[in-house]
């Protein structure tokens, strides 16, 4: 009897969505460069770009939720509609879209992944990571409590996280990125414009820059590590109110006046051309040659 009660208790303890999830698998014809918007408040959303002129949605929808898949051709909308608080309905979706699509994804307690989309990827979630990979021309990713990871995007990139990190691998183009206290790393790739801000997180920029690039990094207390190719031609304007500045590419930092603790560093490498600005309040700044 005690064993039966234990089994019953175990069964009752299984979350409702586990036992009541329903499988979905739908597809519709789509334009090769249309817009696909996806809303799934809780669970996972994985979007994959493919070479077919159709959108396919597969996965599982939690109890109390229903898949809404509307539109044809240029504009399509996929949403998990809920008859109560959508936070309690966990759905896991795999969405296949024409690679050149514009994809707009919104989650809340959702982990978002976008692979192989060459058009635009715009994604936002509160509690979950966002991972993008592929040569998207326009990427805009924002998470509150999750990490943001961008790989090989090639165009305009905007990446922000409040509580998590932002890391870019081998991406190129124009960047705006920010964190509060998570790390912000730009690793590889080549940039025409890069604006990076963090309140207390470490900012590391280890990438190539184009001849007339503008790169700016600003933190309050976060450390800054700037690793550039030895032959880079750029004008540098570096300053920190109370942080230490280390420079392997040129002269040492100096104090601009007797009545300020600030240290500054202004110098030019090669024939100039690019413009690099770094400002911190108390974060240490390191300027190194990229290995």
């Amino acid at each position, binding site marked *: 009897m005690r064993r039966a009660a234990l089994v019953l208790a175990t069964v009752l303890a299984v979350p409702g969505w586990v036992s009541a999830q329903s499988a979905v698998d739908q597809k519709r014809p789509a334009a090769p460069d249309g817009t696909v918007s996806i809303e799934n408040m809780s669970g996972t959303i994985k979007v994959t770009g493919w070479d077919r002129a159709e959108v396919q949605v597969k996965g599982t929808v939690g109890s109390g939720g229903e898949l809404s898949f509307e539109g044809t051709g240029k504009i399509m909308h996929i949403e998990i509609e809920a008859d109560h608080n959508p936070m309690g309905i966990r759905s896991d979706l795999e969405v296949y879209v024409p690679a050149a699509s514009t994809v707009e994804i919104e989650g*809340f307690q959702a982990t978002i992944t976008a692979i192989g989309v060459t058009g635009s990827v715009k994604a936002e979630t509160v509690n979950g990571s966002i991972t993008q990979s592929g040569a998207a021309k326009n990427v805009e990713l924002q998470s509150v409590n999750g990490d943001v990871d961008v790989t090989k995007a090639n165009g305009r990139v905007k990446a922000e996280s409040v509580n998590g990190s932002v890391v870019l691998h081998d991406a190129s183009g124009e960047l705006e990125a920010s964190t509060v206290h998570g790390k912000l790393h730009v690793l590889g790739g080549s940039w025409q414009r890069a604006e990076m801000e963090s309140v207390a997180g470490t900012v590391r920029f280890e990438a190539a820059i184009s001849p007339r690039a503008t790169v700016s990094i600003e933190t309050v207390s976060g450390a800054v590590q700037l690793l550039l190719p030895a032959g880079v031609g750029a004008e540098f304007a570096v300053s920190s109110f109370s942080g230490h500045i280390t420079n392997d590419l040129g002269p040492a930092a100096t104090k601009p006046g007797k009545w300020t603790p600030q240290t500054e560093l202004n110098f030019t490498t090669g024939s100039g051309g690019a413009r690099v600005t770094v400002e911190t309040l108390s974060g240490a700044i390191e300027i190194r040659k990229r290995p």
Partner: protein
Amino acid sequence: MTCQELDLRLDDWLDGALTGDAAREVESHLAGCAACRERERELRQLLAHAAALPRSLAPSRDLWPEIAERTSGGWSSWLVWGAHGFQPVALAAAAAVVLGLAALVFTRLAPERVRTVTMPAASPSATTFVAGGSAADPVLAQAEREYEEAAKALLEALQRHRGLLPAEDLARVESNLQVIDRALAEVREALVKDPANPELNRMLVATHRKKVDVLRRVVRLSTAL
């Protein structure tokens, strides 16, 4: 060097245009003259205003279009504001007041140093303004108050929607807001030591902006549920 002679050279000295003996004469006079040190401090502050404001006092690159859209007919994601009494119009108007005040200050005090920048406005037409400030002066203090008011309104909105957000998410958000508040305190402390520092002026406003951005995003997402 007399105080009048220093007056003529102070500007160039601050710009770094004086070197060698000329610079040393200015420094020597400043070291022994409290009145001229005060003038130097004021001039540094003024230069900091001019350098800081065009980049820093502009509200967030995301905030302006939303305020503008709200004032010209509304956007559904901002309904929470209207429903609970927050008035972005007032914020935009207050920002315009700040900028107008700053323009007046700079036009009167240092017309040759004023930088003019055209910014997106809350109204359909662009507003041209000039300004700047540090926390020690009324201009930046007013800007700080505007950001603080916006943050307060957002915090209240967030408070009203606490039930929609998991407790651990709220805790993380609050933890990050504390990081930002500590950073603000750190910048203010540095500004006490060096009130005319343009980088610090920019940093102060940028950090305020970050706080408002974070709150705005969390409120918008939580009310979208």
